């Protein structure tokens, strides 16, 4: 039994790793979008983002922008998804300074 359980467990693990990478990629992509915007246009606050579906998995997204001071913002993008068993969450965070690039 133990041996037979290895196969589905391994398959789930591989899928899990793919989903984690996908979620991280989605979060990072949104962070880069935010960082590319002019500093004055980044308005502090939390807001949901459109969900993205990849390979049959629906990834929900939300972003949060917090002002640390008038020259520095804290950006967070959180991605959550559900597989057969439970809901997973991954957050990527970044700071952006008031510097033209």
């Amino acid at each position, binding site marked *: 039994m133990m*041996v*037979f359980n*290895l*196969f589905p*467990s*391994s*398959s*789930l*693990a*591989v899928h*899990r*790793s*793919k989903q*984690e*990478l996908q979620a*991280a990629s989605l979060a*990072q992509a949104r*962070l880069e979008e935010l960082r590319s915007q*002019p500093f*004055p246009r980044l308005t502090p606050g939390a807001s949901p983002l459109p969900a993205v579906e990849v390979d049959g998995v629906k990834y929900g997204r939300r972003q949060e922008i917090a002002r*640390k*001071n008038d*020259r*520095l913002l804290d950006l967070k993008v959180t991605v959550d998804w559900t597989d057969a068993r439970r809901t997973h969450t*991954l*957050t*990527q*965070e*970044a*700071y*952006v*300074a*008031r*510097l*033209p*690039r």
Partner: protein
Amino acid sequence: MATALVVVALLLALGFTAAGVSTSSLNLASRAVNAQTARNVAEAAISEAAAELLKTPTFAQNVTVRFPGATGNLTFDRNERLFSTNNLDSDSSAPGCGGTVVPAQAVHLLGVGECGGVEHRLEAILFLSRYPFAVASSGPVVSQGGLQVAAVDDPADAEVLEDRRPGAVGSNAEIDLSGPGIDILGDVQAVGAVRLGPGVKHEGEARPGSDPVVLPRIEVTRYDTAGKPGVVELSQATFAEPLTLTGYSRCAAETLKFERGLALANGVLYVEGNLEVQGGISGTGAVIVTGTTRVEGGAAAAGQTALLSKGDVTLRGLPGAYQAFQGLIYTEGNLDSRYLKLNGIFLANNAGGSTVRLDDTRLLKTPIDGVDFPVTVTPAASPPPGATAEGSLLDVVMSDPTTGGPVVASLLLDRTRLVWDGSAWQLPAPPTAALVWVIPSGPTIPVVDGDELMPYLKPRGATPKGLLALALPTVLDRLRLILKDVPPPGPSPGAQPGGSPPPGSSSERWTLDLSKFILQQDRMRVLLWRDV
């Protein structure tokens, strides 16, 4: 039995292989996410340090940023293996970490992030940029042809096309460039729309919808020359002959007019009113106007020249003779230019939006963001020989009305300022004077109480004031005659350029540095930002 054992062994092997693959897959994914997080936290440490530098240019403290499961560090301690270097307040380059050369007025930031055993390093170089725009306006910038914009490192290379670099055009409204002969080398940036006609040659980026352009606000009246050493008050509102100004000058008139050009010999002219110049402005100096400014005609302003005007500025060179400036033109009104060459910066900053119209105009941004030149303050023209230090003591021969014989009467003129109008000395009207009787072989007696002295001359029906009124025009004519041979203001004959100023002169600098009007946080730019 043996077959069953073999099958079981195979299944076990496959199962463990699958487990190994899945474990590796999970580890790889985890490591990739950690690496991304480590990079983000390293970048966050750099961003936090940059934010501190925007506020405090001398910032050189350690920075630590903590994200869940990750830490980012940045240190300026040169004893550490990886350190940052703040060289913002230096005019020469400095060595940084790992042999990096940190340029003058720049800072090298090295951030190190760690997450789940994965380390990531990021470096950035930030520097204080010079003002990037060749022309910037709070309102629209328009041209219907003949506009050239670029930049050069050395004004001497202005005519060398290969040495031209990008010079930006900026507007806090819209930019509309159309017509023939428009050549823009550099970015065109506007808060509103950017319209470039089909014939426009443009190398650079067109950026509509941009952030507002940073425009320096220069308080024009702050440069009033009133009270400056040796300041000359111009006595007339119209000069029909060419005029050269040196030192500080001032004029309060509805409109000050120069009908045959204005030359600046390291002079600073402050006009409380409007200014009209026909024949162009030449030389080195500054012209500050509280009203409107209109300059017509071609001339070459060499060295450094600043034109500051609270009102509208209209510049009209000639098709065959452009008006040339090297320095800065600033207005709080509108700007209208044609047949103009400017090596420097054009700024129009009206709170309600200045309109800048540039036709047949060449703008070359130069590295020097401002104007700086020495102002030589020379004393007034030397009084005639024998005069006292306090004024001019002139002998005027008057007739003794009683005897008909000559009487020496002297007029002591209070120290008065003379203005050379290019062809003759002009006296401001009227100088004050005191009548002094000079009694032969006797003391000089001031006319305090004419009654005491009148009996000496026994003038009939004359009073000291009457005598003074009679004598003063004569004295002034005499003074003009004497001064006819006195050279006009300027360097002493035989003086070498850069040599000593005339005796009794002093020198101070007139400076307008744009960087003083722009916040450091608006000047800081990213030179380098990369993974290490």
